[in-house]
């Protein structure tokens, strides 16, 4: 962030967030899918792989439903409620999941 300068209101908020000024608010669960940048399915919270679901499809709907990895999965809560309407279980039938074009 040292080489970036916020120009608009949203950028100022991101800068304040990065500076830790809004720490308590950042811990609020971000309904609306905007601020989580967890690495994804490559590593778990401890930096290893033993905590990951196997196969990854088993974890897909929990992430979709709660918007945990919005960078990797469409979000159910706001933008793509019908993404998985045709597929009950991704482990069994992931090909039935719809495509999205953000």
């Amino acid at each position, binding site marked *: 962030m040292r080489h970036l300068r916020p120009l608009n209101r949203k950028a100022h908020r991101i800068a304040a967030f990065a500076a830790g000024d809004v720490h308590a608010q950042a811990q609020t669960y971000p309904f*609306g899918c905007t601020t989580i940048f967890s690495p994804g399915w490559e590593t778990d919270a401890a930096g290893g792989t033993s*905590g990951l679901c196997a196969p990854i499809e*088993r974890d897909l709907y929990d992430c979709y439903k709660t918007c945990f990895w919005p960078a990797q999965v469409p979000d*159910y809560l706001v933008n793509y409620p019908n993404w998985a*309407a045709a597929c009950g*279980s991704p482990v069994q039938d992931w090909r039935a999941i719809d495509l999205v074009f953000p």
Partner: protein
Amino acid sequence: MIAALLLAPLLAAPAQGPGIEPGRFLWLGVWPNRILVFDTAKDEVVGSIPLRKGVAFDFTLTRDRKRLFVSTDRMEGFEIVDVPRREVVDDFRLSTDERIVRLDDIVELPGGKRVLLSVTPVKKEIDRYAIEKKEVWLFDLEKREKVKSWKEKDLPREIRRARLLLSPDGTALHAFGRDLVVVDPEEMKVKEKLIELAKPLFAGLGPFRPMGGDLFDYRDPDRYTVLYRSRDPIRKKNATGLLVLDLKGKKVADFGEIGPEFPGFRPAVSPDRKKAFAYGNEHLHEIDLVARRIVRQKELKLEPRRWLTGVSVDGKRLYVGGAGERWDVYSTESLEKLRTVEFPGDITSGPIAVESGPL
């Protein structure tokens, strides 16, 4: 031994009438929009309840066990399931055109006509969503509207940091926090400190920190039986135990340490109230609730994000669920895996033992 004998009557099996055995049917939400009824006597799905507004996020069962509140509609509302009829009879939406209102929790109130809703409002700005402070709503189910609301941060500490729930006899709103207090739901103020838990009962004992809900599904109107965590002030170590609270006598009726605390301690209790099973530290533990001690351990490595979800009505089988679309069935005798039960969709919520015989 004496403690075990004292506790034994408190853990006696609930009265069972000619109806359905308590704990026989487990209800669970599955993708994309239904509740399945799982019969633990047969290990198979025997019913399916379609929901009106999509995925089930959370369940709240009323104390009379006749209505089930189900959070749906992308957490923007809830539906009411008539338990005996096994069908949705009403639904409510909280969001408006200007604000998204995410529902975090539903608490039944005495009388059954109003509920407390814990919500997170999100204002729709022209270019973004602005998440607002959490609120608590007093919601009238007959008028279908919010009667009062409070910012969660403005509530008294005993309520704000506590778990709110209707008392087992259905007459009062309780807050389970550092202490057990009675709350006035119309004003959200503490009416009475019912049982003190934060102050150690005697020197050398730590305060009781209750964990989770009532182990016996609030079937006893005069008692809570909960797990607690306590930190030994001398050894500086956490321990887990069983705590029985006498609501009529307004006192701790009994307590006993089970063993050291371990992560992921989420027990499944057998319907006869005598055994519990818990998974932690890559071991399956069998706990004798009468003697209050771990009687058996077996090394078992479950897949990530899988945990114990229930016990069959005869107490002979354990169900391991979690993320995904299946339960693995284990024998409580051998602790070996018996079979796998697959559901038509990924599990989204539950399970909850809903139906019961006469209480």
